[in-house]
């Protein structure tokens, strides 16, 4: 049935199009008038106008019909109605297809409206994210008070899920989770920022065009590798390597240590930092560079004294975006970090992160209204707010920076 209706629908639209176009051509050109009375819109626009009008009203009719007469379930009536609408459209088009009729303006107005709707989707996504997080988080905070959540020092979201079960009174203190996330992020940035920055400096100031052409793709490949692959690398190679390395030094640490996870996460973020910084530093006007070189400065002096200070806000923003990325990174930590919360500052212990907890809470037990599941949304909300702040700060820094140099 839908196939039949769809086919007829398309056919009728084409009919309306052909009708209006033929009509317009006959009216405008057959008498062979001169250019003085050229039509406002060429025949195609009249045709689009008719076809889209027919299409719109037929869709409207079908929707209404489904809504109110869903039970009738006959195809004949909709078919007849569709034919009727097309006929009416042709009649309308017979009246409207005149030289003065601004079909183009209407058609373009319609297109513009459609484009507008598309950009509305982006807003909807943001609202969707915020609403879904808020909605479920509020339900969570009905069960667990917000203050307990934010200040609690213990995270073990295991609560009995049946009334008669003697389990644990799960605790939902987010501090150790946030601390773990922060710890991993800090160490990741300690690796990513200097290396990324030096790569960017090398790329934008030292590597000639030819070497740049080799290095850039390498960095891009590094950036293109999915994070689950880095996770596998961390789990399989780096974790045990750090463990045995430390064991050789006489320290007994777990393979899930913050250090091991951070190394891999740092590597993942290096290309991100380096390409953003590269952009930022290339954005420093060449005339500043030239000015410095012309005074007899070496490249490193130029970088340190002119380019880095000038690019500082941009580099700051790049690092903030890197931080935001590290906070939200999931697959590496899901594979290589601990699932148990641990309140510690020691980088050789295992900690858990916000994202790991979200995954753990939502991939095991899927009960929808238990505090355990809702906690995932509360964690999501925290993550969203954190990254939102970082992103907004970073974006506004970048904008200010761009405004400074590219007036």
């Amino acid at each position, binding site marked *: 049935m839908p196939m039949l209706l769809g086919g007829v629908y398309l056919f009728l639209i084409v009919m309306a199009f052909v009708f209006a176009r033929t009509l317009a051509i006959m009216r405008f050109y057959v008498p062979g008038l001169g250019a003085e009375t050229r039509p406002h819109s060429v025949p195609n626009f009249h045709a689009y106008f008719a076809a889209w009008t027919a299409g719109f009203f037929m869709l409207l009719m079908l929707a209404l019909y489904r809504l109110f007469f869903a039970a009738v379930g006959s195809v004949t009536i909709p078919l007849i109605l569709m034919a009727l609408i097309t006929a009416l459209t042709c009649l309308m088009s017979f009246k409207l297809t005149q030289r003065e009729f601004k079909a183009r303006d209407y058609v373009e107005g319609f297109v513009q409206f459609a484009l507008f709707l598309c950009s509305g989707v982006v*807003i909807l*996504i943001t609202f969707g994210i915020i609403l879904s997080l808020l909605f479920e988080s509020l339900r969570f905070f009905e069960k667990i008070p917000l203050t307990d959540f934010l200040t609690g020092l213990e995270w073990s979201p295991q609560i009995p899920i049946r009334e008669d079960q003697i389990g644990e009174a799960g605790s939902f203190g987010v501090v150790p989770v946030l601390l773990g996330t922060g710890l991993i992020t800090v160490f990741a940035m300690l690796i990513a920022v200097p290396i990324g920055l*030096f790569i960017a400096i090398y790329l934008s100031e030292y590597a000639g065009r030819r070497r740049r052409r080799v290095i850039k793709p390498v960095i891009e490949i590094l950036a293109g590798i999915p994070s689950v692959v880095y996770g596998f690398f961390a789990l399989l190679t780096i974790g045990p390597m750090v463990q045995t390395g430390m064991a050789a030094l006489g320290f007994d640490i777990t393979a899930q240590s913050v250090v091991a996870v951070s190394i891999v996460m740092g590597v993942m973020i290096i290309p991100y930092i380096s390409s953003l910084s590269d952009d930022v530093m290339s954005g420093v006007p060449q005339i500043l560079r030239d000015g410095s070189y012309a005074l007899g400065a070496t490249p490193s002096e130029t970088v340190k004294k002119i380019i880095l200070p000038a690019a500082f806000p941009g580099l700051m923003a790049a690092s903030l975006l890197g931080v935001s990325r590290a906070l939200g990174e999931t697959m590496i930590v899901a594979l290589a970090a601990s699932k148990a919360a641990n309140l510690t500052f020691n980088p050789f212990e295992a900690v858990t992160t916000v994202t790991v907890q979200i995954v753990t809470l939502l991939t095991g037990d899927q009960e929808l209204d238990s505090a355990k599941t809702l906690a995932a949304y509360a964690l999501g909300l925290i993550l969203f707010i954190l990254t939102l702040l970082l992103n907004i700060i970073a974006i506004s820094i970048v904008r200010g920076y761009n405004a400074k140099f590219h007036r």
Partner: protein
Amino acid sequence: MTEPKDSHKARAILRSRKRGEWMFRLMGLGSVILASTILGWLLLSLISSGHNVFYQHSLDLKITLDRQSLFSQEVPSQQDIRAADYRAVIKTALEARFPRVQETDTKKELYALVSLPGASNAVRQYLSENMQTLSESRSIILPIPVSGPVDQYLKHDEGGVRVRQTMSAQQRIWINALIEKGDLKAHFNMRFFFAPDSPNAELAGIGSAFLGSLMAILIAYLVAAPIGLGAAIYLEEFAPKNRFTDIVEININNLAAVPPILFGLLGLFLFLELGGLPRAAPLVAGLVLALMALPTLIITTRAALRQVSQHRVDSALSLGASHMQALFHHKIPEAGPGILTGTILSMAQMLGEAAPLLLIGMVAYVSAPPSSLTDAASALPIQIFLWAENADHAWVERTAAAILVLLVMMTLLNLIAFIIRSRLERK
């Protein structure tokens, strides 16, 4: 020439400046080399542990099929043939191959040479295609998959002491005998590419996950590309410059940096809880990926539109074309290659995205490939994630191989983008 007051001092200054310069340069070069080394190391370790998966060993075993012991019916139907279990047949065949084995424990070691589920299914497949074999009641020689440990043992024959430990002395004798007879053969591992996931490493494949990923990416492309294009055009060309569009702008940039996992939460809430769509469906995965790709897509599309020089648009306008006409006749076609490559690249990125898919139920074990967009499926990165948690060497190899396939697919997409760009831009 104005000589410095103290030329000795001047030379010292110059020397220390040179040294600083050299150090700085070295740090930069060092960082680049470090990053490249890590990349090389990563790829090499993936290839070195993953390449083994692309071939697999099978054992040519003579199997006797006896209708009476297998089926109660005179003429078993296709369905009966499928439903029967052929493990006993395999075991008998193995015992016939090595008739001196008597004790139960030794027999178990013997059975452990082959993958029983795989072997019995091989018989099943053969029978359902050659039903006459039953009525003729004759023997056949069938290549059947060897068990995971044996496969591992054969692949790591030379070096691995650890691997050798998994085989008993008796088993090694059997294997050597089979090799001498030429019954153990390596062949290209088709199964890995087409089979669904399996609890047995030697039978597990990425077929199901691959198909799921493909479906999801297709959906994501079909949804995100037109909306992204439309939104980009609107924002770049028509949106009035005011507070609101400013917010939209910041919003898009921000969305592009929202952690992927939050899109998973959005998808879980929006599509599964509110929308009532099934868990683990490629459709849902595609929609989530589309939402996630949209902001980046809009940004790249806008950049592509901005790259187009205004000259031709201006001339079209000066000829009396409307804004919309100038746009659709000139600007968009000229930005076309940029837009197309942008969308393809973002799809390549989505192909590797796992975090949001974790939350919409794709972690489930799915025993057969998806047959429709709403049928349960896995996705390649999720399959990698799930396999990665197994510490067994056989699974590690599978994981690495799956990653290689994923990387090859992403590279292919990048290549396509590159070709499109250079093709269209040459014109």
